[in-house]
């Protein structure tokens, strides 16, 4: 899940030139779950823009549960189902994550895009009204040694070898209402009987695996991950 929040309307209005005709695009998956760009929010945005005197060519959102970040779906949506309005549009306002924005750009052959949302993190949907971050997408998972909890994400400093001296009553120095990530890991390792893991030295991260942009090519029986760390081919097990 890519969590997103809508940008303030005044910021969005500031992107649009006078007489610019805009088409509003939403995402039926993550942005819908965040209430930042599902069908109702996309329609509502189109209405709000019209009320502000903006020319709106149309609006569309992928079906419920369907992500905007899949190129074939967006091509079908904008180039077939909404062909006419899409062609009339000078630009697209995307109520979705940054991947969705680029997907619209690709689908419209380099069309002008405006971000309608800020993409804030990748997270777990704990329940319908709460999403929280457990993974930083670092390319080198180490939670085997930390009881399933990621120190890169849960520790404000991303420390790999244990807590700093800043925790007080199990809370982090950056915010006394927030759990110290290493306190959570320590408690969990004790509960699992695996505290010995905490005693082992952890190497510094290979940041070249975290270099952006990265890509994954999925082939027949094999996938290739590309980053600055090089190409890593892995067998896919169908």
């Amino acid at each position, binding site marked *: 899940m890519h969590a997103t929040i809508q940008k303030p309307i005044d910021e969005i209005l500031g992107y649009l030139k006078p007489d610019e005709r805009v088409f509003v695009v939403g995402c039926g998956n993550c942005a819908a779950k965040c209430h930042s760009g599902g069908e109702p929010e996309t329609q509502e945005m189109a209405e709000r823009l019209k009320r502000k005197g903006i020319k709106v060519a149309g609006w569309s959102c992928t079906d419920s549960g369907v992500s905007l970040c899949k190129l074939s779906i967006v091509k079908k949506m904008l180039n077939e189902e909404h062909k006419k309005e899409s062609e009339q549009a000078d630009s697209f306002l995307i109520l979705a994550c940054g991947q969705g924005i680029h997907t619209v750009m690709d689908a419209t052959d380099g069309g002008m895009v405006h971000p309608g949302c800020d993409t804030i993190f990748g997270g777990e949907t704990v329940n319908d009204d709460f999403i929280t971050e457990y993974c930083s997408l670092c390319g080198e998972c180490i939670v085997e040694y930390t009881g399933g909890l990621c120190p890169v994400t849960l520790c404000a400093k991303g420390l790999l070898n244990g807590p700093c001296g800043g925790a007080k009553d199990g809370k982090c120095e950056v915010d006394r209402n927030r759990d110290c990530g290493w306190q959570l890991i320590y408690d969990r390792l004790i509960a699992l009987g695996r505290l010995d893991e905490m005693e082992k030295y952890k190497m*510094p*991260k290979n940041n070249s695996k975290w270099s952006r942009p990265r890509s994954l090519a999925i082939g027949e029986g094999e996938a290739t991950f590309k980053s600055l760390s090089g190409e890593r081919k892995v067998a896919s097990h169908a």
Partner: protein
Amino acid sequence: MSKLKQALESGRFVVTGEIGPPKGVDLDKCLQDAQMLREHVTAINVTDLQSAVLRIGSLAVSARLIERGLEPVYQLTCRDRNRLALQSDLLSAWSLGIENVLCITGDHPILGDHSEAKPVYDLDSVQLLKAASTLNQGHDMAGHELESAPSFFLGAVVTPAAEPLEPQIIKMKKKIEAGAKFFQTQAIYEPEKFEQFMSRIQGYKVPVIAGIVILKSAAMAKFMNANVAGISVPESIIREMEETAKEDRRKKAVELAARIIRQVEPFCQGVHIMPLGWDELVPEIISEVGVIP
């Protein structure tokens, strides 16, 4: 050779002091503070952007101490530099005559005056110690040979009053394995707890220098209890401070610091006095305790 290393290796009880570099380029006051400590301490810690507030760097100030014949403990945090910069600054430090390095994590930038800064923490304190040890052995942390190697005396920090204590002790052991040859601690106000801590780490056979923060007032104690991790000033000390008239507070501060030093002395290898502005009291504290550096 590092006087601090010599003193600790000879088993002598050491006293270290601390200065905080200023926000600006005029070092007069800070060097005067250091001068005041000259006859009373073996080495002087130079903090590295303490509290994540922008200041002149610990490298420059450490070098200025050396020019004046004072021995610095160069504090180096992981907060602001990646592994290239950390290793390069270490090599620079050696070229300036710096031998003692205290490797620390560093307060998060959100707590300082540049809260929008990118927190680096490319290495953590254990990894930094290991990188510095590797430099001592003539290699960088990527395994490449150095044309010439430094020979740092590496230190680290530990918080004896942390709750729970076990994660601190686990990390302390990793720091020793990574090359820490001495430890300086967070401020101690409860000698009994410190004694318990020292008995738990007895097997580690590493010199521990107990942190002493000069307590200026009851308000300061309450503030630290509420806000500073790993510091717990007992109610009895707060009361003692409250019952002291304002004009007698400096005297009380000296008495308190000296008392704690005497209480921790049997269990550790030295004390690290953090005056936080009351630098002129350090000589009085030392003479009251009767420790000879």
